[in-house]
């Protein structure tokens, strides 16, 4: 599913600079899919998808009304909108706007990857590995873990979506890749 979506992008909107980069990333890993994933060693995550400033618009969410000295705002949410895919991410994790801008870019990279690569996206791979590590513990522990995971499912999903800025690494359940397609 992710590949057709990429191909369906309006060609004019897709920045030419990323096309080759995308292909290089997508095609090799895509070949080994879909339901057949050999986990790579932990240190060897797929490289981040390059994200060019021309691919998205950035807004600082601030109410209308006066700024400057007249108001002393504490939150400085940064919102990015990826033009080719329409993915929107928002980050207000820290008090530093500069930091939020960086985090928002990373979050956007992750979301785009999840959409484009599905099962082989960094975040999904990370999440899966995390759970595989857990699963490899003894039978007893596994049963216990499953129980927990069942109970927490609802919360997990919310966490993935709302956890602006965090990689969501510790979240999510092994076999579910569909957290990836959730976009703001």
């Amino acid at each position, binding site marked *: 599913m992710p590949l057709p979506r990429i191909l369906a992008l309006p060609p004019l909107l897709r920045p030419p600079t990323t096309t080759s980069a995308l292909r290089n990333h997508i095609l090799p890993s895509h070949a080994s899919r879909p339901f057949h994933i050999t986990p790579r060693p932990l240190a060897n995550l797929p490289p981040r998808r390059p994200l060019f400033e021309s691919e998205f*618009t*950035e*807004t*600082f969410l*601030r109410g209308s009304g*006066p*700024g*400057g*000295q*007249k*108001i*002393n*705002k*504490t*939150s*400085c*949410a940064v919102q990015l909108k990826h033009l080719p895919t329409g993915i929107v991410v928002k980050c*207000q994790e820290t*008090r*530093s*706007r*500069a*930091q939020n801008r960086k985090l928002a870019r990373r979050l956007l990279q992750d979301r785009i990857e999840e959409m484009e690569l599905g099962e082989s996206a960094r975040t999904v791979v990370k999440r899966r590995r995390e759970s595989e590590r857990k699963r490899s513990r003894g039978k007893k522990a596994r049963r216990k873990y499953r129980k927990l995971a069942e109970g927490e499912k609802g919360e997990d999903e919310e966490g993935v979506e709302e956890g602006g800025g965090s990689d969501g690494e510790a979240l999510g359940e092994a076999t579910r890749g569909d957290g990836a397609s959730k976009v703001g």
Partner: protein
Amino acid sequence: MPRLPTSLLRRAYALDPYLPALLGPCRDLCAAQNELRWLREHVDGVAEKRRARGGTLARAALLRELVGKRARGMPLQYILGTEWFGEVEIRCRKGVLIPRQDTAASISHLVRFLRDAPNLPSELRVLDLCTGTGCIPLLFAHDFYDASSRPDLRILGVDVSEKALELAAHNLERTRKAQASVAKGNISFLQADILLNPFADQTEGPPSLKTALNLKRMPQFWDILISNPPYISPKEYWKTTTRSVRGFEPKLALVPPPDAAGTDTEQGDAFYRPLLTIAQDVEAKIVLLEIADLDQALRVGRRVREMDIYDGIEIWCDQPDAHPNTAAEDPASDSEFPIFGTGNARTVLCHRGQGTQWLQRTPSPHAPTSTPADTTEDCAHISHDGLEPSFDKTLLHAGDGRPFHERTLKSRKEPVDWEHWTGKPANAAAPWYTKEPRLGRR
């Protein structure tokens, strides 16, 4: 202020019992949740430090106390003790204005140009008038030295308030330790009252800028002048500032002193004329002045245009580097000055001579026809029979690293006529901002 709906308060309470109290100052749930998270992190940090020193801390009690302070309107930055200004963390204290993100955006934008600028002098000199926490010099140095092999940087921050200067010195020391880039710059702070007539007899209180520069053997010439002065008129102060600003931040930093003869608007604008006079006096090639809104930007821009010494005047918005999304949103289309970025108008930028080059701009059609060095000769409105500024030439020579002859030549050609600017005899003891000068009537 509209009352918060009970349903919202209930929802907030269900999420966390501390949240309803924070909804007062924050107004929306998301902001309240953020602030609560930051307050908790702060309390954890304090507890951690306390433990390292062998003590203990009742976290719940401290959190409760801090949430209480915030609920009564105290700015979060005073409670936590810091604010981020670009990538520099600035310490904040009661009695000194909290730096604003919008200011940081303008400074970073200016420095971005300068980092790519051709033909910078071997020492770039930046004067920041009304420096407050010292945030502008520190961010300037941080951003400027982010890349390697820049020219030397000399930045002087000036303020009238002792409290501000103390905090600025503290911030300088703190940032130098944390950030090697800032340590490279020659940054210092100086007390002066920039509204004071430099030629008036003065016996007490902070000296005028020129006197202070002389006393400290500082250079009289500066390449760039930046200022975020008090710019809110008394009426706007009551009408448009938030409760937390009015109740907790110093009025000295926000509202210019009263002027018996002037209107409300004139009082709000009171710093710009002295600032522009100083800019001319120190031969600034780039001047960046923060303003409250588009109306004030236009008033300042017109005043600058009347001076007829700058090659370009621009207005920058809150996000000066952003491109307006649609033509309809773009206020620049029919403005008398080019407007850059999105958001409210935030700064007026003027440049001339080398400054125009550094910014890689082309002189605008309104620009004076002559080069800045001999502009004033052509300016009918500058009367030459006023008082010559009495630069101490020996100090000038000692303190100024650049060729002496070039400097004296220029300063002779650009006499600053204080009487003309201020409408006051140069020796008058009264503050020279008290009367509107007759500028622009030819």
